């Protein structure tokens, strides 16, 4: 039996389901652009929930405290860095719009401020980030004020040790202690953050945990937990636990895939379709073709082939982990369109000898080239198509890992790519306005 092809038409097709892809969907929804989004959402679950903008300048040892000022500096030293190609005001707007959307849909976030937040990591190091989920916000505050605090860990939860957090922060946070407790009704064997988080959506589990937490807190008024405070309404779970214990409570992200990452993925997958986005989250686009009338995306799901006709396309397929770029022994290639990839001369130059070299590795700066309207370029320097835009870390000339700038690049470039797609759509709908 030959399966029938299902056809969709849309104004904008977003390929990729990382932070960049989802941010693009959010910006498109807010601008009333008909949108389809395709791509495996796996990578979002690897995020910590922290939204970094710029935490470190390349090669510098010190952290960036004022990311906005650092952006000005970046504009001077690296004009081809993707963050240098978006107006600072647009980056600010993008972050505001993105976090406001998350807040409206059930995960409250801190607003972007003038300075970075010094946030906690699961091993007791510190990290500069711009916005944190509301469930984590009390941690940085308690650290800044050096409030007496107890880090709670759990019997059976591996990879998160309160003793480790304390051992590494004790010099800077003298009133920090730790207690190990049993999670209600999970006394034996290994327990998993995701399971704990879902269990805490049940009021009875919260009450049992609150009782144990109160005892474990001792004299401290603030406690830190691994990120397990519910999956779908974490702010409610935290508020309830605070009410029951009378303590201030915060989460620390755990090793990925972590609950805060899974929360974001589940939020996007549930909310965006309700907002009218055609979301095909578990499939990959197998072909993308352009002609005079638009773009055609081909893919398959378990019901058969799908064809999407789109007026514009945003390529946000990420790097190696998400499959946007492929590393072959003889070079790096862009997976979907075989776009030219700016890259080191050969494999010998991909990495420095030392893994944790603060300069970062050349392979991470590889990527596709774009013009000022965020259109990917061919080898001859001309746009691949007037309808195609790019967003996220597939764009060259950045090292999001060393720069602590993954979410920043994703949100900023998605903001610009959607703005450019919108401009194109307007011009196509009203040809007389075309400039």
């Amino acid at each position, binding site marked *: 039996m030959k399966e029938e092809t299902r056809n969709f038409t849309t104004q904008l097709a977003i390929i990729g389901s990382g932070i960049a892809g989802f941010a693009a969907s959010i910006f498109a929804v807010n601008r009333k652009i008909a949108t389809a989004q395709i791509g495996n959402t796996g990578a979002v679950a690897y995020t910590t929930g922290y939204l970094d903008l710029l935490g470190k300048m390349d090669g510098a040892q010190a952290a960036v405290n004022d990311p906005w000022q650092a952006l000005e500096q970046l504009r001077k030293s690296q004009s081809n860095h993707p963050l240098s190609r978006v107006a600072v005001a647009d980056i600010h707007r993008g972050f505001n719009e993105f976090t406001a959307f998350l807040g409206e849909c059930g995960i409250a976030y801190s607003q972007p401020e003038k300075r970075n937040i010094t946030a906690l990591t699961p091993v007791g190091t510190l990290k500069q980030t711009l916005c944190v989920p509301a469930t984590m916000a009390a941690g940085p505050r308690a650290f800044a004020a050096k409030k007496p605090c107890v880090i709670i860990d759990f019997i059976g939860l591996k990879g998160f040790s309160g003793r480790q957090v304390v051992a590494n922060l004790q010099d800077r946070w003298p009133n920090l202690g730790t207690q190990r407790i049993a999670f209600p009704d999970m006394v034996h064997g290994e327990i998993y953050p995701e399971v704990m988080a879902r269990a805490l959506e049940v009021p009875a589990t919260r009450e049992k945990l609150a009782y144990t937490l109160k005892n474990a807190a001792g004299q401290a008024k603030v406690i830190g937990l691994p990120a397990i405070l519910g999956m779908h309404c974490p702010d409610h779970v935290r508020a309830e636990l605070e009410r029951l214990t009378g303590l201030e409570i915060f989460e620390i992200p755990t090793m990925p895939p972590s609950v805060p990452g899974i929360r974001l993925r589940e939020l996007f997958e549930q909310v965006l379709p309700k907002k009218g986005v055609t979301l095909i989250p578990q499939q990959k686009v197998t072909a993308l073709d352009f002609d005079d009338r638009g773009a055609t995306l081909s893919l398959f799901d378990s019901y058969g082939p799908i064809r999407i006709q789109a007026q514009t396309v945003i390529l946000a397929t990420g790097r190696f982990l998400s499959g946007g770029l492929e590393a072959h022994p003889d070079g790096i290639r862009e997976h979907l369109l075989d776009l030219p990839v700016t890259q080191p001369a050969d494999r010998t130059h991909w990495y420095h000898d030392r893994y*944790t070299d603060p300069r970062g590795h050349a392979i991470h700066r590889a990527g596709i080239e774009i013009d000022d309207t965020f259109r990917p370029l061919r080898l001859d320097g001309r746009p691949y198509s007037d309808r195609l835009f790019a967003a996220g870390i597939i764009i060259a000339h950045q090292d999001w890992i060393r720069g602590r700038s993954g979410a920043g690049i994703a949100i900023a470039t998605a903001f610009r790519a959607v703005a450019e797609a919108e401009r194109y759509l307007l011009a196509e709908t009203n040809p007389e306005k075309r400039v």
Partner: protein
Amino acid sequence: MNPPPPRKGTKPGKTILETEVLIIGGGVTGAGIMRDLALRGVHSILIDKRDLCAGASGGNHGLLHSGARYVASDLHSAGECRQENQLLKRLAPQCIEQTGGLFVAVDGDDPQFAEQFPTLCRGAGILCEELTVSEAKRLEPHLSDKLIKAFRVPDATVDPFRLALENVDHSRVINGSIYCPHTELLGFERVGDVIHAAVCRDNRANTQLTIRAGQYINAGGAWAMNIARLAACNDVHLLYSKGTLLISHDRMTHHVINRLRHPGDGDILVPGGTVSVLGTTSTRTDDLENVRPTVAEIDLNIQEGSAMIPALAGARYIRAFSRVRPLLQSTGNTDDRGAARGFVLLDHATQGLTNFCTITGGKLTTFRLMAEKTCDLVTARLGKQEACKTSTVPLPHGEACRWTEPGAAPKYWFKANNPDDMILCECEMVPQSAIDQIVQCAPGIEEEMTLEAIALRSRAGKGPCQGSFCGIRICSYLYDRGYYRDTTGLEHMRNFFNERFKGQRTVIWGQQAAQMELAEALHCGLLGLDTLENH
């Protein structure tokens, strides 16, 4: 001769250790000597400036030669291999997998070499059975379609880490012989024809210590020439050959696969548990300390290896490593592989010494024989009569030595059936209890063990993620148990990742590139190990 002044910052130590024999070098030979001596009732101390198998002992194919590899070039070595292969299979089966080996020729290989091969094997007493092309392909489906000849020989694989650990552990059990890791020889106190003491430095604590012994054995492998010179002996002449090998994610074959030709690059593929090891290249080097694989060596190995096993061209690789093998300098021989692969035992009598000897060269397969010959000399010099027992006494299974065996950890874990014993390394299924046992009982334990030292004594970090996740979990567990108490634990973690990366750097493509991107985002982007300040 006076010892050199201590290096700046080295605290002068009052520690003096005494023993009958000091063995310098913790490769399999040194470990084998330690056990051989213990079985003869002689107490020893074994020191290594790094840790067990840090040199060529830990950087080879893990191939237990049948001897067939050497029938055309070195009949004597071939015979030694045949004999040791049979002995070790019987006496140390826990370290060996009896895979069997194939010698295969493909279109374009010298047919004359292939023709004379079975005759040469017979001459050396090595079993050699000719297979038809279709039989060989049935045994090993990945073999090339261009196969023209195939023979089966009794090659096997051996785990050099377990072998060294078991030898050291057994020595401790027999007579309390001591292994000191991270203990580097600085010099000898020599008076006339006798060495009175060895001056050493504990490289972790940075303190000096003195070891007094009746006899001193230099089992330094590639470092043997440098060690001999510290005793003013100039009769050890070594050349250094760098070999690079790589490890595939999957086990490609059941048997050891050898190319049936004069030994060359990338012509041996050896299975090891769930993976395969391909190699090796051979280039002359002067540098013993900073050997690392290069992209060109990796590509050459794959290109050559895929002539036998075409699937190697598209395989996923998880790691590469380079080590230096010591070659005995002989005149008129320009081919490093053809250079004598036998071993040499020097008594240094011509250098005016009566209690110092050097054993070097040779190969993993003949380590026991090398130890036997060395101990014959040393016990005679000590005036003892006891004969060698390592050719008859089986190597016992040490409880804390069992964690290096591929695929064994899951078996122990399922058998123990303790749900509270959580798996820390998920690729290789290494549980908490294994870490506890290693930290408490394994040979060469120290007060604050590094993750590298734990990885050496287990399978932790050997799987596809190369430790990027389990390194974090094990580190967290060590904090939890109170072994790590401050930020030095994070330095151990960072150093472990940096060390693992040396092996990954040249094979990062395909899925490994994705794995690496995730690891680096975690280690540097989140945890900030790239900005960690040293304690």
